[in-house]
């Protein structure tokens, strides 16, 4: 493990992503990626009394699925990094309270999945043989916490994104056949003064551009090195802004760049306005769709960049701007 340039880290024996699992909610099940997920739910409660309980169940079952798919027992997993959007990360800690694996709770908003893969990879390079990484989000619990309760029946403005109901989990392992995590670029906090909690894409796009450009400078790579550069949840508005910023800095990414929030829903028929968001979005799109593309070698070099809006409902009500972050991870087969 060594540091590259300003803030990137490359691995001597790159960790393998052994297996991934994903479970998504009803709206995601109607989307274009539905066939790639391990399980699709018919209703947002999944037999539970509250959305919070449903979200905990989703992350718990996703973790159980990935452990059984991977073929290793949970006692062989050295530690777990997990997080979600709810206060004090309750979905993860409640959902995973029975798994008996050393637990690190993370909050990086929608960037949490790549944050967990980054920290997991560092653990693999130092002491661990197997590390579990998981994140979740739920549309209803997130709307309730960050915006307004669903009971109010609010109209959503056109710039708003739809929090994905779902979870993704991955197991990293020391010795494997790939796909390999070859390099990570942890992001800096970037705040360009956007205050609109209904326009997260615009707030996070500068953080995405900052991390991507830093990654290229640190590694000496350029956009054409990758088959796909995928951001985690800028949505339609944020994606356009990100392309513009990168172009103004001399990086042409239009050809191989897309966004998980754009991929997961069908814009014409699903009325999600600016696309998907939430920790569960990048987690389920990677675990369901992108991981399979890597396994089938349809994508050989992937730069996954998850972006997070590090805000909460109190700061939004107090008129604070939205500090944003993006973590990048380079995955190659």
């Amino acid at each position, binding site marked *: 493990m060594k540091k590259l340039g300003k803030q990137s880290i490359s691995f001597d024996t790159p960790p393998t992503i052994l297996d991934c699992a994903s479970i998504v909610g009803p709206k995601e099940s109607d989307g274009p990626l539905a066939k790639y997920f391990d399980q699709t739910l018919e209703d947002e*409660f999944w037999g539970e009394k509250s959305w919070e309980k449903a979200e905990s169940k989703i992350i718990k079952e996703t973790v159980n699925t990935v452990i059984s798919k991977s073929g290793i027992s949970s006692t062989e997993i050295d530690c777990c990094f997990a997080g979600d959007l709810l206060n004090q990360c309750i979905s993860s800690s409640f959902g995973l309270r029975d798994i008996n694996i050393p637990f690190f709770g993370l909050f990086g908003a929608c960037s949490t999945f790549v944050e967990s893969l980054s920290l997991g990879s560092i653990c693999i390079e130092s002491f661990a043989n197997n590390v579990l990484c998981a994140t979740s989000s739920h549309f209803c619990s997130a709307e309730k916490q960050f915006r*307004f309760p669903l*009971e109010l029946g609010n109209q959503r403005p056109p710039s708003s994104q739809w929090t994905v109901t779902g979870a993704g989990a991955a197991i990293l392992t020391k010795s494997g056949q790939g796909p390999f995590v070859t390099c990570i670029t942890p992001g800096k906090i970037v705040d360009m003064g956007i205050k609109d909690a209904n326009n997260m894409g615009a707030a996070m796009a500068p953080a995405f551009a900052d991390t991507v450009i830093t990654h290229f400078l640190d590694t000496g790579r350029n956009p054409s090195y990758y088959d796909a550069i995928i951001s985690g949840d800028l949505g339609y508005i944020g994606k356009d802004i990100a392309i513009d910023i990168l172009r103004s800095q001399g990086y042409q990414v239009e050809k191989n760049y897309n966004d998980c929030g754009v991929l997961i829903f069908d814009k014409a028929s699903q009325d999600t306005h600016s696309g998907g968001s939430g920790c569960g979005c990048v987690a389920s799109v990677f675990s369901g769709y992108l991981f399979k593309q890597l396994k089938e070698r349809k994508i050989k070099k992937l730069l996954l960049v998850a972006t997070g809006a590090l805000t909460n409902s109190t700061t939004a009500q107090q008129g604070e701007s939205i500090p944003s972050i993006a973590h990048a991870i380079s995955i190659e087969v």
Partner: protein
Amino acid sequence: MDIDWGSVFSLMPLLKCFFVGGIICVIGQILIDKTKLTPARILVIFVTTGAILGGLGIYSYIVDFAGSGATVPLTGFGYNLAKGAIEGVKQSGIVGAFTGGVKACAGGIAAAVFFGYIASLISKPKIKKQ
């Protein structure tokens, strides 16, 4: 062609009602789409606008013209508060300014609490399908 003018005129109040109610809703939709105002702020703006227009005596013309089209939307609630406060002052002096508004809206407020409670007992909030 025979036109039954009687039935045409009997539809006019309905048309006026829907036209004015619709215009008020369109204003709300434009505020949601074109500004960064949250729905809660739009709600407060509508109620206070109704109260101010009511207090100045302007809103009563709209109510005369459109009936429920003007009283049912949020602005109508503000208008009712203002009207009640004015009547309260006439009846019981300055204290009426504080009591009259809520008194005039008491039926609406109690009904909202009551039916809200009933609805919460018999239904569960869900994601809108589309």
